[in-house]
């Protein structure tokens, strides 16, 4: 009986399952091979994407910023009698609440809520007491502290946005020019007082402030009410004699006399093959002033290596061509003088044969001379090689530098070049064997 069951039911059933699985496997294998061969025929699409990351709406939201720093705005009313809605309005006019602009603005890097120049640390008692002794820096040497508008001095650097919000109110309260703006509960009147006090040289400044108050400031009158409710209508009490209007204390302040030297701070020192392309490096390329802070650690700064932006010091040809940047900076990095003959596409091979005594290479390296193929006909210097093979280059004669489209000789720009572009444009490189570039 058992044998019959085994032979007639169990064995056929097991066999059936076995055969079905074999059949399905064969079918899947064949279909997989067919579809696999189809995908091989699919055209490979090289997408030109400025960044892989998604777009966060928080980067463009003033409302979320204000709510996040609400307590600091309320404290600023107590610390300096500066009405929050007016403070928010002025920040918008001064620096556009630009959360994504890393190009040295005082807002992004110095947490400076707009135009707070260096003065005296005694102007910031509440800020220092609340956020620490290191929350205010008046040296003018911190990121974003450089003033690029030609008015002299330097911006105050704050450790955080909270410190910047309270610090601005305290700064305002310590300036006799803006007395009418302090302990004033009318937003428009506050802004008029600031403009009348001479905060900005722009003749339309007052109009801009009032228009922006109507657009933005009014939205935060609820914050004014909360601040007044918490600290009263006249919260700021003037203490000892004010040290004066932006007078620098030599013990705290060092005047930055080279505010606008177009220097990119200094060359970075990152090792090749390290780091990823920063998410905020989403533009096609960058003029020196626009370079994101995130890229600065990777650059070779020509201004630190003997070349002056807009010349003439250090430049070989003054032609505004790509070759001029390569030979001028290349001489500084690798030694030598004068030009190296050849168009952009021939520079790497000329450097390899006449200067380095070797041949061009396919692998990039920091300091390497690069050339593209004849079609692209371009040259420049490699600043850094990222983990994924992308390179940061410094170059001349693009829409952002040089003679042809930018119209200014002895200039340069930076650009991230992805591996796909290196391949399509035929990038190749020249550098000596067993020698490192002399990068400052």
């Amino acid at each position, binding site marked *: 009986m058992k044998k019959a069951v085994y032979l*007639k039911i169990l064995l056929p059933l097991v*066999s*059936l399952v076995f055969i079905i699985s074999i*059949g399905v496997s*064969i*079918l899947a294998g*064949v*279909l997989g091979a*067919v579809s696999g*061969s189809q995908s091989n025929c*699919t055209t490979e*699409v*090289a*997408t*030109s*994407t*400025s*960044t892989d990351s*998604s*777009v*966060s*709406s*928080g*980067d*463009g*939201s*003033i*409302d*979320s910023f204000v709510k996040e720093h609400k307590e600091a705005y309320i404290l600023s009313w107590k610390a300096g009698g500066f009405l929050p809605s007016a403070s928010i309005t002025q920040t*918008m006019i001064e620096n*556009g*609440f*630009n959360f*994504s*602009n*890393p*190009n040295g603005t005082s807002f992004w890097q110095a947490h400076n809520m707009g135009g707070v120049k260096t003065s005296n640390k005694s102007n910031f008692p509440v800020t220092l007491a609340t956020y620490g002794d290191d929350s205010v820096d008046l040296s003018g040497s911190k990121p974003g502290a450089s003033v690029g508008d030609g008015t002299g001095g330097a911006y105050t650097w704050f450790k955080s946005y909270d410190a910047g919000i309270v610090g601005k109110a305290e700064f305002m309260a310590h300036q006799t020019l803006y007395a009418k703006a302090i302990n004033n509960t009318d937003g428009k009147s506050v802004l008029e007082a600031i403009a009348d006090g001479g905060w900005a040289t722009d003749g339309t400044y007052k109009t801009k402030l009032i228009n*922006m108050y109507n*657009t933005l400031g009014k*939205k935060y009158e609820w914050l004014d009410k909360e601040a007044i409710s918490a600290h009263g209508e006249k919260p700021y009490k003037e203490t000892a004699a004010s040290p004066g209007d932006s007078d620098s204390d030599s013990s705290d302040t060092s005047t930055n006399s080279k505010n606008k030297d177009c220097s990119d701070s200094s060359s970075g020192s990152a090792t090749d093959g390290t780091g990823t392309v920063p998410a905020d490096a*989403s*533009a*096609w*390329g*960058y*003029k020196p002033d*626009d370079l*994101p802070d995130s890229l600065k650690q990777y650059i070779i700064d020509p201004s630190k290596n003997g070349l002056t932006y807009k010349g003439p010091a250090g430049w070989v040809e003054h032609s505004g061509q*790509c070759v001029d940047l390569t030979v001028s900076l290349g001489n500084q990095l690798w030694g030598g003088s004068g030009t190296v003959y050849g168009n*952009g596409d021939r520079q790497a091979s000329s450097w390899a044969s006449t200067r380095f005594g070797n041949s061009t290479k396919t692998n990039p390296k920091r300091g390497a001379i690069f050339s*593209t193929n004849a079609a*692209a006909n371009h040259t420049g210097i490699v600043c850094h090689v990222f983990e994924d093979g992308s390179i940061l280059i410094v170059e001349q*004669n*693009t*829409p*952002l530098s040089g003679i*042809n*489209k*930018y*119209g200014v000789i002895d200039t340069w720009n930076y650009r991230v070049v992805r591996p796909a572009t290196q391949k399509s444009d035929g990038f190749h490189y020249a550098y000596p064997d067993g020698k490192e570039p002399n990068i400052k």
Partner: protein
Amino acid sequence: MFKWIKENIIMVLVVVLLLVFAGFGIFSKYKESTHKSSRTEQVPEKTKNKDSASAKEETADEKNYRTAKLKLEHPYTESGEEQKQQVLKAFDEAINDIKKAGHLSKVKGTVENHLSMSQAGMVSTFAMALLVNEYDYQSSKLEVMPSENEDVVQFLIVLTKPGEDNCYFVGNFNTTVNQIQLKAYVGGNIGGTFG
């Protein structure tokens, strides 16, 4: 053997049917791919592309559009018409200001041209596309979507140029202060080197 088959006739039938179906499937696939490759060999390059399209393969432009769109927080939700008009107006004024400046070195993001919230490098890239690469902004193709923040909507704009891939810019738009924040671009032949 015959006796065993007779005793297990149901199972045998199932197995036979399975093998027949599998064979038919393999034969069909083989025939289809053979037919396709022979057609491809005979037709010129342009027809090849048509075949690809008919097989619903994604074009480079479609891929770029999808890549750009998927960077946004709510890519498949439309914002209100009022917000769309706000963005439309801001872009019209921003582009007019860029064209008025005429040269890349003179273009700067300001409150007045609605670009004060954009990174300077992205303002340059956008201006480069319009002034140097001569792309045209297509206002009719503007897409505006809601975002995770009340005072922000997100946008996708299309720049076109005959003979070149479209270029898609995406970013934030602050509806309180009417400011454009360009965040990224996908596709297009932007930039250039000049020897």
